[in-house]
């Protein structure tokens, strides 16, 4: 249950970032879903997945689709 809630919040944050960066919402939903799916696949072998692991992997997957979104996602904690 917690996983589903976290993923929804995670996707919502990414969609807000995508819209702000200028990506059409429909396209953003598709590649965000794909990035999260690919990130989960890449982290399947790990016994413990930290938030940092997830963020790093998702950022790497997002970069394949949109470099600006990946940059914003990776650096949002380094602005203030």
């Amino acid at each position, binding site marked *: 249950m917690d996983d589903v809630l976290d993923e929804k919040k995670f996707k919502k*944050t990414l*969609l*807000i*970032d*995508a*819209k*702000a*960066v*200028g990506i059409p919402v429909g396209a953003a939903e598709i590649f965000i879903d794909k990035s999260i799916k690919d990130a989960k696949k890449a982290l399947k072998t790990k016994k413990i997945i930290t938030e940092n692991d997830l963020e790093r992997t998702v950022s790497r997957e997002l970069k394949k689709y949109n*470099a*600006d*979104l990946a*940059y*914003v996602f990776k*650096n*949002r*904690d*380094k*602005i*203030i």
Partner: protein
Amino acid sequence: MSILTSLGIVVCAVLIVALMQLIPSIFLLFSHYTSGKYSKNKASDLVLFFTLGVESMTVLMIAVIYFVLNALFSHLSINNNIWAWVWSGILIALAILYFVFYFGKSDGTRLFISRKCAKNFQHKITTVKKRSDAFVLGLVSVIPETVFTLPVYVVLILKIMLVGENPFARAGLIILAVLIVLLPLAVIRVVLDSGRNLADVQKYRVKNKTFLKFVVGILYIILAILIIMETA
């Protein structure tokens, strides 16, 4: 020489305030989030109220400084030379502090404020829904940076008080002191409206971080020297 040093003091003070990064950082993140979360009209509205909050706190701060300085200079006989040397010492100390501590050690533009404070700001930015929230966020954004801007505002306001009876010069300086904090916000707004996004602006800021440290540090030192020159 006196007019030149006075002008130099005003220009240095104004540039130092305009080059501070906390309010622009919060504004940048706030503009990004509101444009992603809300409609264009609502986002513009919230950004306007944030700006009003920043401006209100700046005006309040300037008014309090003016009142305190007026009271101090009316009731205490302060030696101008001692005052100039003490204040210059403070500005040089701030130059060193700015250079060493203003930007954090990370590869972004993390600032000197504690991570808890930064996380609080980020949380507030993502949860703003109403105009009052945006206004309060604007008000509060000004406070952490006062350690670097307060001494500069004191110098600027002393200049306003000492400019004589010319009402235009006084009004001009007051308007400048009040509006200068909006200059970086206006620049960011124009850049974002021209089609750039947070990623573009942030990459530029990170690239020029070290240059900015040097420039502001040197401006503090020049300001300190000009204050001493003026009272010499």
